[in-house]
């Protein structure tokens, strides 16, 4: 299932609450102790097992375990490397499109005066952002597949439409990524106070100038956070892609599933763990780019 990740870092910073003075003291970290313990147990142990499996080899006969870089090396070669690249391409592209369209929709929702539209859009986004996995794949197959209702009504086949391709998969991903972006950015857009725009207008700024110098800088952390969230969601998605494109669009999650629970290839479990480690490293890299950028933009909000 393409379980959407929680949204810890996407909301709030644009609001007024950041001005609240933070209490610093020796006991602050104690309050975080349950969280730290939870993180250590639920993330640390699996991560440890993953790393251990990725860099060791156990001889099936003697049971002896030895250190090896073979699995990691294999995970960065040939079709495995291709699947990592494929996943990054698909995730980056869908996250970018999803972020842009999501913000436009969120802006439309926020600026419209209709409370009904707002409620409807937010509720729908909440539902659609969590609609993923095999059910979503089948919904698309029934609608836009080769014998899908819309495909046949509009004769999309002759126009070159193919659901079972990179493009098709990107469209399906956008179906849950755009609503996710809407959910992630509406609170931030709410935080853009109308007074700022009025002030800018009074000072003779055009709409473009307002967005260029006020709106976007203020929103940047939230937008970046939304993009990272979308990237992560697309990067980790598995079931939808598995049901739709099988092996014809190389994705790392599909490769891990092949290696871990297949009927064909034996003894690939450690390569799957190594691929998992690669995924964590890529996610870490994305975060490493995002965090300094966010801190930089957040500075303007103080």
């Amino acid at each position: 299932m393409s379980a959407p990740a929680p949204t810890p870092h996407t909301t709030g910073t644009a609001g007024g609450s950041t001005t609240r003075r933070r209490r610093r003291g020796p006991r602050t970290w104690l309050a975080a102790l349950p969280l730290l313990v939870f993180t250590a147990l639920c993330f640390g142990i699996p991560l440890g097992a993953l790393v251990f499996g990725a860099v060791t080899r156990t001889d099936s006969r003697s049971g002896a375990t030895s250190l090896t870089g073979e699995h990691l090396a294999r995970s960065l070669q040939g079709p495995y490397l291709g699947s990592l690249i494929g996943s990054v391409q698909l995730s980056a592209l869908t996250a970018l499109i999803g972020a842009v369209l999501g913000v436009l929709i969120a802006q439309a929702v926020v600026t419209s005066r209709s409370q009904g539209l707002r409620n409807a859009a937010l509720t729908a986004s909440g539902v659609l952002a969590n609609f993923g996995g095999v059910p979503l794949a089948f919904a698309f197959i029934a609608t836009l597949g080769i014998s899908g209702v819309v495909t046949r009504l509009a004769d999309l086949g002759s126009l070159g439409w193919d659901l079972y391709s990179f493009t098709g998969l990107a469209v399906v991903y956008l179906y849950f990524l755009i609503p996710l972006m809407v959910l992630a950015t509406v609170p931030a857009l709410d935080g853009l106070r109308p007074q700022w725009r009025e002030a800018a207008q009074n000072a003779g700024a055009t709409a473009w100038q307002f967005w260029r110098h006020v709106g976007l800088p203020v929103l940047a952390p939230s937008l970046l956070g939304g993009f990272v969230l979308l990237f992560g969601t697309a990067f980790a998605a598995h079931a939808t892609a598995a049901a739709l494109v099988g092996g014809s669009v190389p994705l790392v999650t599909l490769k891990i599933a092949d290696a871990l629970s297949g009927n064909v290839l034996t003894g690939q479990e450690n390569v799957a763990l190594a691929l998992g480690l690669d995924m964590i490293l890529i996610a870490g890299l994305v975060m490493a780019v995002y965090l300094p950028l966010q801190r930089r933009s957040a500075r303007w909000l103080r």
Partner: protein
Amino acid sequence: MSVLLATAVLTALTAACGAAPDEPAAAAKAGADAKTATSAAAFGGVEGLVAAAEKEGELNVIALPPDWANYGEIIKAFEAKYPKIKIKSENPDASSSDEIAAVKSRKGQDRAPDVLDLGIAFARSGADEGLFAPYKVEAWDKIPAGQKDPEGRWYNDYGGYISIGCDARRIPVCPQTFADLLKPEYKGKVALNGNPTKSGSAFGGVYAAALANKGSFGDIQPGIDFFGQLKKSGNFIPVESTPATVEKGETPISIDWDYLNAGYADQFKDKGVDWKVAVPADGVYAQYYSQAINKDAPHPAAARLWMEFLYSTEGQNLWLKGYARPVLLPAMTADGTADNGLVAKLPKVEGTPAFPASAELDKAKATLAEKWDKALS
């Protein structure tokens, strides 16, 4: 590491449960015997085996989908015949590697699977790792030599041929051979049962296509090229064919085991799908699945009884009823115990099946894992 820890704890717990003081010593001894018994003779014949199995009262099976080769009916028939033994069926859609993982991770637990239904590569690698108990069923001698481990750690049970299923309501002329599949009239219509680097039947489909295109057991490349060509011409759709996609018409032509395709024909007759099955004459490829007993089976006697049941005339005919070809079919045809009505309903095949050697199979899989993505994208 956490898995190891959990296993250790659970092993300690289950060991403590097993050592309940009121358990009669005799039963414990019979249990120990059952673990090492290599034939029914060790129990003093099949009656003794039945008694020992009934004492255990349970059998854990894994990865037996009820709609696959008639397993649903086989499980029911076993329970009807031995009402004192309850079958616990776990994760019916599990793959072979899931089964091996379950054997390893639940070593010593009551929940460990007793018997396994495995793809041939996993049967061989599992035997090499020493995971299976050697046991020879009553019908052992009738299993062809090429289809069993000499020590009895695994043996083939049922199988079938790669076939082309076709929805005759949507496809005016059904393809009969791999060469037919390239025709432009089949654009956007040809599917496999999954990704061949993961699904055994899809792998068989590529192997059969290789044989149809001047390849061999040692050379699967022509099969990969064939599907690359199908993809380029737009005939191939990468969607995994399932009963759902077959019924809906999304995979109007599906390359799959003949027993699955023939099963779909029955299943969807009432639903307006006229599903035709043809075994392509240019790419004849058969593959059998293997049975094995977990060396640390929590119910060793029941596990052995299950094997005896599967390789009995009754068990073999039940597979036949699911359109699968039981491994004893040649012997049963010879001695007249095969259900001829069921044999007549099998898709027609010319000749006898040949099987790749381990090394050829390994090479084919390595080639496939390396080249499939590139050919298809």
